[in-house]
């Protein structure tokens, strides 16, 4: 780099020497002979996460220093950046922020280190079973859960005073509202992408069905999976969804509801904070409930999201990386992220925690929030998390998701049995890295 001038003029040579010197100095620091170890954390952008990193650096007392490398905003881009680096054997990665659907893929590709012994025990302690399942592959633990997430049903109690208990009820109410000329749409992520797969996965799990076998090696697509297709078809072909349904992602859905374009919204809890920000006057009417169920009397199983922290197999400082990862998601830091950044914790005990961030001072929603002020819906979230659905665990999830969203798009064109057969054959190909993904 620095010695590329090559003209032989003294200033150039000087610059080369200085440049080379700086480069070497940088390398020495990175190797951490005297200055302590640098751990590179690759994680999605999260507004206040630097504070968590700072906490852990303070706690490490100079033994290591975590550097927070912000990944892109889009989940696909995050995955790609890490996968490319890891495939090329980049030794500069230590801690990886993985979306819950990527853990089997990174484990199988040999990019994520297995968690064992005391680290494993600590990573598993007090974690809700759903989130924990997302960090596991082939009965081994490959990541520590950082946060989880679960969708809820949101509604306006001026339009529908009670949340519908089943999908049938929800569709019925929506049709009645439509007949009465009131806001009636059922809003959800219907674009051809992961969001549609999340809805479908929830419906399949709630109907007691399976897309893949337990070990993730073969395609099942049983009766429950077909029933889920029927529901999706019915909801989207009876004029009770937004005209932009097939272009709507999470934030479009949120905006459509806030504009008064719907009676029901199926979405992540972030919509509550946005609603509070943008329409504080109506906030009292913005209500939530767990997803409506598919089978009357059997609670819905809602698909969970969130992030896990893994240690890269290319890391040069694995013991420190495990320790740092554990710190980044410990109880205090999870609570901090939960109330400051709106990411629900994966530790069960935090849902009943009543102390504010600064226990010495009184609770204050703006300056000293507690779980109760930040998550008025925390009981509902916990209820959904306790009986949650996990997306199919397989290293080929990315291909599966692309294929499912393609075959289900647009949902109004679904022909349940035929679509199920198509999914079965296309997904089998995808699992064997044979088929083409659209």
């Amino acid at each position, binding site marked *: 780099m620095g010695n590329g001038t090559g003209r032989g003029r003294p200033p150039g040579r000087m610059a080369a020497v200085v440049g080379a010197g700086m480069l070497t100095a940088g390398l020495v620091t990175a190797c951490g002979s005297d200055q302590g170890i640098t751990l590179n954390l690759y994680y999605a952008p999260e507004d206040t996460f630097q504070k968590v990193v700072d906490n852990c650096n303070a706690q490490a007392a100079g033994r290591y220093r975590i550097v927070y490398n912000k990944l892109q905003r889009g989940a*696909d881009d995050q995955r*790609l950046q890490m*996968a490319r680096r890891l*495939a090329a054997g980049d030794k500069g990665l230590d801690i990886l922020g993985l979306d819950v659907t990527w853990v089997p*893929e990174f484990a*199988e*590709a*040999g990019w994520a280190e297995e968690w064992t012994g005391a680290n494993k025990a600590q990573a598993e302690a007090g974690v809700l079973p759903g989130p924990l399942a997302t960090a596991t592959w082939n009965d081994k633990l490959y990541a520590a859960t950082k946060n989880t997430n679960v969708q809820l049903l949101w509604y306006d109690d001026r339009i529908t005073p009670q949340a519908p208990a089943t999908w049938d009820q929800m569709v019925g109410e929506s049709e009645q509202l439509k007949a009465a000329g009131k806001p009636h749409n059922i809003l959800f992520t219907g*674009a*051809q*992408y992961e969001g549609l797969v999340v809805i479908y996965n929830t419906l399949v799990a709630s109907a007691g069905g399976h897309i893949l076998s337990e070990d993730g090696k073969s395609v099942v697509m049983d009766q429950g999976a077909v029933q889920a297709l029927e529901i999706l078809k019915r909801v989207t072909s009876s004029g009770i969804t937004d*005209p*932009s*349904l*097939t*272009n709507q992602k999470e934030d479009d859905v949120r905006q459509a509801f806030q*504009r008064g374009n719907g009676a029901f919204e199926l979405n992540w809890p972030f919509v509550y904070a946005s609603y509070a920000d943008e329409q504080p006057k109506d906030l009292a009417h913005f209500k939530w409930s767990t997803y409506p169920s598919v089978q009357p009397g059997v609670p819905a199983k809602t698909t969970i999201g969130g992030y896990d922290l893994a240690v890269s197999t290319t890391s040069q400082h694995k013991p420190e990386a495990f320790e740092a990862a554990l710190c980044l998601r410990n109880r205090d830091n999870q609570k901090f992220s939960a109330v400051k950044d709106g990411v629900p914790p994966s530790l069960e005990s935090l849902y009943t925690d009543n102390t504010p961030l600064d226990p010495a001072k009184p609770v204050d929603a703006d300056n000293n929030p507690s779980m109760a002020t930040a998550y008025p819906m925390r009981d509902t979230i916990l209820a959904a998390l306790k009986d949650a659905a996990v997306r199919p665990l397989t*290293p*080929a999830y*990315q*291909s599966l998701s*692309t294929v499912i969203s*393609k075959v289900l*798009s*647009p949902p109004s064109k679904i022909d349940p049995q035929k679509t199920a057969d198509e999914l079965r054959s296309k997904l089998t*190909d995808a699992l064997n*890295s*044979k*088929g*083409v*993904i*659209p």
Partner: protein
Amino acid sequence: MSTVEDVSATPRQTTARSGKPALSEGKRAERRLGWLLCAPAAIVMVAVTAYPIVYSVWLSLQRYDLRFPQDTEFVGLANYAAVLSDSYWWTAFATTMVITVISVAVELVLGMLLALIMHRTLVGRGLVRTVSLIPYGIVTVVAAFSWYYAWTPDTGYLANTLAGNSAPLTQYIPSLAIIILAEVWKTTPFMALLLMAGLALVPDDLLKAAAMDGANAWQRFIKVMVPVMKPAILVALLFRTLDAFRIFDNIYVLTSGQNNTSSVSMQTYNNLIKGLNLGIGSTMSVLIFITVAIIAFIFIKLFGTAAPGSDQGGKR
């Protein structure tokens, strides 16, 4: 792309090429020097283009999925069979072809009009040319985003005024039309630029003579200008066809390939980069490479396009 042997040689080389064995010592030394001087460029070319192409052909013969590294094996032509028997691939191929043919045809007509206007403009010629070139100067992704927002209900002026209450980017035909529109808007100036260079080839005397003979404007255009411009027109068509066939960014932004609007490049990206499936993805890249080569071959052999670097004027 279309590399054609350089036959516009200097007279000296022509003599050497005519096969006379009597090369003087000096000539031979000169030749050696020539090879030596070419060598670095040739080596770089081999390293940056030939090697990746050969490597992707090699990858296309394997089951090679980064997610299942232990399952890597040589599978012969199985990947080709998988891709060529897949409906997704052929849908994407057909979509790409439709976009290519329609957009290039529209661009040719519009580009010719624009070229004639730019060629004939007397007042503010510089300004007219600059203004018409602006779309070509805008980064495609940026332009695609403005089209995207313009056609999204609520935020978009075009969607609100022209599409009523519907979302055109969620339907097959409208989204395809919008993709083609974005392509045409973006690259017509390029077409016009190439055609304008061709217009400069048409001697004024020829046009005046034709006018004297009583040819009207349309006859002068068809019988005089177009034949003289033929090499320029065909080069413009070839360039744009190859370019249009590789369409990626407009689709990526406008629809991300939804509603069957995925192009072959988009699908290759999904399999190779997003899907980490190097085998299938490389197979698709090789197929695109072959298709592009065929298109170039057809243009050069059948239509006699003058290849860049050749001054044969299409008389091959």
